Structures are given as C-alpha cells and as structure tokens.
C-alpha cells in the first residue's frame, strides 16, 4: 500500500473524459452479461415490490403486521431508514462543497443519485400506509371537493410531507444541474445523430461559455447553501414525528441532532457499499481511490460515535429525569423482549465502527465493505428499536403486545431494496457516474497538473 496515495489518477483532461464517459458510451448490446444478470435479479425483486403493493391495495392494510399497540412498525422503520440513507448524498454535495472538500467530486454524483433513489423508496411506505394511495393529494393543500377541509398545519406529519417532498425536488434539481455540463460532454463526444439529439436536448444546449459558468457557479453555490440547512431540517422534522408525541422513548429533545447524525452515518455507509461495488465492477480505481474511501470511513467513525453518545445520553436522561415511564422504556429496550434488536443495534452502530480508529482497517476494502453493511443493518435496527420497543409496552400493561412482521412486510421491504439497486444500476450504466467537469476543475486548481508526465496527474 502506498503511504500517501493520490486522490485522482488521470493523464490529462481528455483521459479523464475518456475514463468516465466510456462506461456510458459503450454499445448497449455489448454490455457484459453479468450486468444484465444483476439487473434481471434486482428487476425481479422490484417486480416483487409491485406485487406486494398491488396485493396491499387490493386487500387492505391488514396484510401488514401493524396492529394494536404497534400501529407504526416496519413501514415507518423502512421510511426513516431510506430517508436516512438519502442524507449522505446532499451532505456530500452541499456541506462538503461549502467546506471546500475537493475529494467530494469523485463521489458526489453517485451519492446524489443514491439520495434520489432512497427517497423514492422511502416515499412508498407512508404513501401505502395511508391505505388509499390514490387519495395522496389529501396530504397537500390542494383545494378539492372530497376532503372539503385543509391539512392540520400544526401537525408534524404535514411538516414531514413538506420536508420530504421539498427534499426530493431540491435534490433532483441539484443533481440535474450538476449533470448538465457532463451531458454536454457526452453530446460532443458521440458521433451518432440520435444520441447527439438526446444529449443535446438534455444538456439544454450548454456550451461552457464563461458567462454560463459564472451563473452556473452562482447557482451551484446557492443550491449548496440552501441544501445544507435543508438536509439538516429533513431528518429533524422526521424526528418531530416522534418527539412531539407523548410516548416515552419518543418524547425527547435529543431526537433532532441524534436523527441527523444517524442519517449521515447510514447514508455514508450506503454510499460506501455501492461505491466499493461500482469501483470494482466498472474499474474506477483511478478516480475513486483509497483516499476517498478512507475519508468516508472517518466520517462514518465520527457520526457512529455521535450516535453512540446519543444512545448513552438517552439512557442517562431516562434515569436522571426521574420519570418512571421513561426509565421503564429504556430498561425494557435493552433487557426486555426486544433485547436482541437493541444489542444488534448497539453492536453494529457503536462498537464495530470503532475499528476505523486503525488506519490499517479503514484502508482495507474487505473490512470497510463488511462494516458498511453492518452499519446499515444496525441503523435499520435503530429505527425498529425506537419505533417498536416504545410502542409495544405503553402506559397500560393490559394492552402490551409483541410485533410479528408478516411475509408481506418482509417482501415489501426486500422489494424496495430491489428497486433501489435497479435504479442505481441503470444510473451507473447510462449516466456519467462521476462529475467530469468538477473533477477536471479539481485537477487544475490543486496546481498539480504536470504536463506530459507518464505517471499521470496526481492531485493530493
């Protein structure tokens, strides 16, 4: 292993365009068979999602395991899980941009795409949990004659509707704005008339004029500036769904920062899982280097530790507050019927990421791949623990219960994983996975563009 590995390896600008665009430009029919097989598998799982949702709509919400006293179960767990994963994309594209972290340029495009796909998966759960998804417009202040009233703007659930839909829209705009110059590159590289037309229209006739770039950079900076509080607000508002209720275990002020840290933690882990696979399958070793992965592992370590601190803090406050219900809920979480979920969560989220303190481990691909997956298992369990253990034993012992997921619950969640992977596979094949123009900018302004050097451009 190199002691001080370079950030990006490319001979020159053209080589960079070549490395990234060649993935997109290959003849569709000549795509390797393993791609089609993978797409076939994930596509079939997406089909399963379609079947489950059809079954749910045709039969009723009772096909899920939600029941008294656990009215929110896997559906909301999965919703918060997917929304959380989405947070890494905007963090990488907006917050790291404002902090001038140049290493973000190799990973921001794919992380933003991941955000969009994760938010799509997230949206499915509350939408179908309403039971009548064709009435979804009731969630928005749309004048209509069948509801005949307005939404309750005092409820955190409506705040959530606004937060999540704004988040999706802004992420989409941000992602597409970044894509425009790269689509122009693809338009200029192709010699096929039809592709020139498609890319030409998709890139809005971008020509890279200095005036364009000036407005473009202003737009990018503004989008980064407004997305930064946005990304923090979204999971804050998601946590309000719980924190503004009076359920012990939910009614705490630590929720907003704790949820945001957890979201970034799980999101980075998910970016890591996808990038390790993409880097290997698409041969992106020159552009996504150990340095990028190591930096991401450091963020996973920090956010994992914040999450660990939040767990400890919650426990302490449950005892220190003197509130017997709060205290019971927490002891019940760790040592009650759901102890297995609690300790899976604590192991995956708090203990395992501490391995990243060692440089050897945080630069080892197999280690980080495994940790990225355990982190997401842990973060799924975190949401499950928060939601289900707080509900299953409330104030009245006569209504205590235990949640059993049905096969529909399981297949629906598996289906969303299929949908997520299918969309990501299509993205990786048909759109430039790395922001070409941004990486070129980094190569230049790190002042490390050595002309004519065989070993290539090395930006630290």
């Amino acid at each position, binding site marked *: 292993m190199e002691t001080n590995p370079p950030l990006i390896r490319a001979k020159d600008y053209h080589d960079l365009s070549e490395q990234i665009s060649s993935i997109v430009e290959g003849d569709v029919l000549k795509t390797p068979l393993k791609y089609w097989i993978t797409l076939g598998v994930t596509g079939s799982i997406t089909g399963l999602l379609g079947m489950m949702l059809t079954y749910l709509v045709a039969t009723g919400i009772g096909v899920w395991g939600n029941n008294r006293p656990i009215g929110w179960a896997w559906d909301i767990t999965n919703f918060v899980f997917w929304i959380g994963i989405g947070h890494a994309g905007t963090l990488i594209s907006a917050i790291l941009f404002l902090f001038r972290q140049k290493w973000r340029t190799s990973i921001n495009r794919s992380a933003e795409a991941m955000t969009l796909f994760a938010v799509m998966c997230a949206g499915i759960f509350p939408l179908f949990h309403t039971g009548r998804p064709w009435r979804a417009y009731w969630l928005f202040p749309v004048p209509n004659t069948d509801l005949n009233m307005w939404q309750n703007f005092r409820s955190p659930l*409506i*705040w959530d509707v606004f937060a999540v839909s704004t988040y999706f829209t802004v992420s989409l705009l941000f992602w597409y704005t970044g894509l425009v110059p790269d689509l122009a590159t693809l338009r200029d590289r192709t010699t096929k008339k039809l592709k020139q037309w498609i890319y*030409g229209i998709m890139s*809005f006739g971008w020509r*890279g004029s200095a005036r364009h770039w000036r407005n473009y950079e202003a737009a990018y900076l503004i*989008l980064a500036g407004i997305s930064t509080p946005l990304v923090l607000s979204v999971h804050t508002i998601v946590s309000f769904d719980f924190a503004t209720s009076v359920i012990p275990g939910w009614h705490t002020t630590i929720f907003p920062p704790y949820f945001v840290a957890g979201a970034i933690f799980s999101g980075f882990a998910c970016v890591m899982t996808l990038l390790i696979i993409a880097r290997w399958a698409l041969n992106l070793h020159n552009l996504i280097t150990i340095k990028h992965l190591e930096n991401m592992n450091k963020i996973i370590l920090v956010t994992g530790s914040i999450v660990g601190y939040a767990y400890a803090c919650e426990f302490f406050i449950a005892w220190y507050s003197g509130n017997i219900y709060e205290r019971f809920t927490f002891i019940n979480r760790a040592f009650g019927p759901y102890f297995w979920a609690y300790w899976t969560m604590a192991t995956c989220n708090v203990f395992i990421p501490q391995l990243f303190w060692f440089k050897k481990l945080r630069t080892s691909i197999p280690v980080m791949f495994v940790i990225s997956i355990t982190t997401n298992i842990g973060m799924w369990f975190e949401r499950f623990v928060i939601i289900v253990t707080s509900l299953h034993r409330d104030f009245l012992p006569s209504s205590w219960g235990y949640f059993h997921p049905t096969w529909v619950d399981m297949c629906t969640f598996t289906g969303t994983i299929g949908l997520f992977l299918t969309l990501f596979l299509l993205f990786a094949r048909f759109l430039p996975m790395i922001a070409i123009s941004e990486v070129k900018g980094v190569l230049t*302004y790190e002042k490390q563009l050595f002309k004519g050097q065989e070993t290539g451009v090395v930006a630290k």
Partner: protein
Amino acid sequence: MNLDPNAIRDKLGIGDDKVYGVIGEFADPHELVHAGRKIREMGYTKLDAMSPFPVHGIDDAIGVPYSKLGWIVICIGLCGTATALLLIWWCGVINYPLVIGGKPLFDFTFSIPITFELTVLFSAFASVIGMLALNGLPRLYHPSFNYRNAHRASDDRFLLVIEADDPKFDAQKSAEHLRSVGADLVEVVEG
C-alpha cells in the same frame, strides 16, 4: 408565420454572410486567462470563453460581470416564505378555523418548518430556472457550434472568442491578435 428558411435564418442571425466571431484555441486554462487578459488590453470588449469546467480568473480577464442570480433567488425565496405564511394563516384563521388540541389557529412557531421548506423550494427553483434564463438556455443552436473543434470545448480545449459585434472586430486582424497571444488554432466562425 413566415416559414421561409432564409427569413428564419435572418431573424436568428444565422447565414452564410454573417460572421459570429474569431475563435482561438488553447490547451491550458492558465494560458486562456493570460491570453484573455491581453486581448482585453488590446481594447476588445465583446469577448467570450468556452471551457470544459469553470476557469477561475477568466471572468475578470475578459470582463464577465458578476452573476445577478443571487438577487433573483432571494426575491423568489422570500415569495416562498410569504406563500407559506399566508397559506397557513389563511387556511387556519380565515377559511376553515378548526381548534385542535387547544392550539392557536395561527402561530409563527408551528409555521416554521413549512415556511422554511417552501423558502428553500422556491429558492431552488429560482436558482436553477434563473441560471438557465440568465444563460439564455435552453437553446438548440448557437453559432459557436460551427467551430470545427467546438466539441472539444467540453473535453480538453479552452476557447477564446472575439465576437463579430465588437466595434474593434476585423476578421483578419482579430485572428492575427489571437495568434499573437498564443492560440494554437484560430478560425473565423460563421454564424
């Protein structure tokens, strides 16, 4: 509507007799900035540059004004703030007052999340649509596409343009000037 191709060309400023400008090509962004500054010092005012990524310093070198986008975004963003507050107030107080949980019909505190989200949403649309509008995009055609190496302006070449409507413009002399500041390849481009 006049569908005569010549009339359309004339209207769009496309035609065999029209010249868009002279384009000089550079291999390196620093050379582009350097050349841009020199050309401007020669007294040209209608300059443009094309590059595969934003070249820092080119704006000052060839006189590209600051982006007005920020002003557009803040105005539209504040419209978003007002929209949210008006919506919540009008629905809750005027159109359909409904007491829920003893909470007030309208208050700034519970309006914060939605107000914030709509401000961000409006600002995001304003910055993307405003950016495109200020750039005159989307457009299907631009005379600079006629340049033989136009396709490399999004790859690895840096182009400096002296536009034909510059008062100092003279196809031959301007081409000469571009060559004198180090352009590898100079071409007069028809519009």
